[in-house]
């Protein structure tokens, strides 16, 4: 029983990083109704910018974190301009396919610029795990969890307490009507993309700092985990992304403990499969949470 509960705690910690990845994914999907497959790779490139700052200047944690987030945002904007803004008149699938092409391009760029493939990344902290009765927590996990909570709260305030958030929700609901109201759709989607990339950058930094190293494969990993967590929660729903991420984390933590590390991804995909068959809309269906009372607040 203690093991099971400890696994759940570990799963929540692990899942909070998935939740952050999924929030970025779902924010882009919610506004544009388009999938950005190169979301993970743009975070990966951001992390390599962080590594560069670390190796070149021997910079500390905060500078590396800032460089990672900044890199992820810049690459994210590059992706938005090419795959979404440039073909905004085209079909959604055109954006998805071109975001896949940019994914390959980003991986190639990193492989050329960083030929050794695996690079060191400064750890968040060297503090010892903390004990709480029979349970123990790694400090970096707690930081990860705290960041996830803080960013989620911040995003919530942005969406439901500001006029920008109101416009963003209007665009997400009916781009056509928004256009005739004079809402600057290009600006709204651009800012939404930048926000999503920044959240992804923070998530990427926390995950890579925990791993202590970065490889070009991180892009693939981040896209997969974010995508699965988003699908579990329901595409376009932010509460769904959080719950989907936590659920994925808990299932992975349990399967690592009871079945072994090699079963981790197998169980994740099995979970996704079960959801697609039995609950294709995800935990939150389609943005059910937006019917919440607080969504009606006058900003």
């Amino acid at each position: 029983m203690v093991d099971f509960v400890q696994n759940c705690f570990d799963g929540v910690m692990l899942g909070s990083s998935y939740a952050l990845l999924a929030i970025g994914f779902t924010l882009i999907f919610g506004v544009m109704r388009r999938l950005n497959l190169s979301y993970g790779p743009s975070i990966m490139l951001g992390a390599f910018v962080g590594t560069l700052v670390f190796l070149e200047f021997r910079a500390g944690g905060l500078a590396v974190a800032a460089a990672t987030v900044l890199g992820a945002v810049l690459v994210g904007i590059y992706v938005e301009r090419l795959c979404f803004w440039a073909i905004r008149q085209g079909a959604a699938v055109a954006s998805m396919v071109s975001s896949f092409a940019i994914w390959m391009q980003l991986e190639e760029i990193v492989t050329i610029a960083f030929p050794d493939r695996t690079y060191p990344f400064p750890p968040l902290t060297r503090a010892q795990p903390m004990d709480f009765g029979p349970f123990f927590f790694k400090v970096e996990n707690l930081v990860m969890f705290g960041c996830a909570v803080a960013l989620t709260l911040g995003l919530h305030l942005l969406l439901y307490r500001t006029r920008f958030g109101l416009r963003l929700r209007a665009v997400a609901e009916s781009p056509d009507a928004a256009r005739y109201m004079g809402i600057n759709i290009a600006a709204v989607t651009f800012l939404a993309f930048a926000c999503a990339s920044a959240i992804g950058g923070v998530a990427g930094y926390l995950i890579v700092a925990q791993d202590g190293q970065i490889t070009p494969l991180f892009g693939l990993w981040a896209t997969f985990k974010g995508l699965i967590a988003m699908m579990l929660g329901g595409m376009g729903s932010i509460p769904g992304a959080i719950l989907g991420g936590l659920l994925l984390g808990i299932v992975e933590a349990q399967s690592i403990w009871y079945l072994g590390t090699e079963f981790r991804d197998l169980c994740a995909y099995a979970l996704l499969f079960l959801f697609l068959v039995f609950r294709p809309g995800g935990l939150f269906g389609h943005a059910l949470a937006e019917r919440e009372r607080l969504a009606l607040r006058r900003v």
Partner: protein
Amino acid sequence: MLALDGLSKHFGGVRAVDGLDLEVRQGEIFGLIGPNGSGKSTTVNLICGVFPVTTGEIRFEGRNITRAPPHVCLAAGIARTFQNIRLFGHLSVWQNLWVAQNAMADRKASGFLNRWFGGSARARQEVEALLEFAGVAAKADDLAGNLSFGEQRRLELARALAAKPSLLLLDEPAAGMNVEEVGQLRERLAKLRDDGMTILLVEHVMELVMGVTDRIAVLNFGQKIAEGTPEEIQNDPLVREAYLGAPQSAGGGNA
């Protein structure tokens, strides 16, 4: 105020609008009628920049807005409603108006903080006045998607007004309304005209068109076949033949 000059829109081989000349004068309600597919909605869409004009010119208050995108048309003072209601169903009634009211001001770079937070008390008062006008003040904090059909139509009209336009394009605002609601809409439009609004009304419901417009143009196959006062149009043999059908239905009913 609004002048269309030889306006044409061709979709492939189809001439949706074909050499249309039209002039809407300041302060009038101008009706645009015609059978289904005669190019009425296309004309509205061309005026507010939905898709590019094939040939011809659109002038608004002396400005050429032929190729202006929607937000430029709106900034010039042209707002619209839709044939199919397109409210933000997951936003509240109040938020629908608030978004529309702020959107244009928010395009400007000034007042950055003001745009993101708060906004002026005057802007809030304007929204309250629009809620009253549309008769939805009691439901201000309800989801727009939960309103009744008639309420949604009224809210959409109010949302178009929120941008403070000088010309209002209404695309079949009475579609699906009952007799009582049509009567109320008629009063609302008359009140708007009294307050100085210019309205281009595309409509099938004859009671509304004949009862509230100052002048009417009739389209058929993208071309104007008649123009005049409601009386003149009702007695025009060409119009009866093309659109109103049997003479007994000319005065009322839903053609």
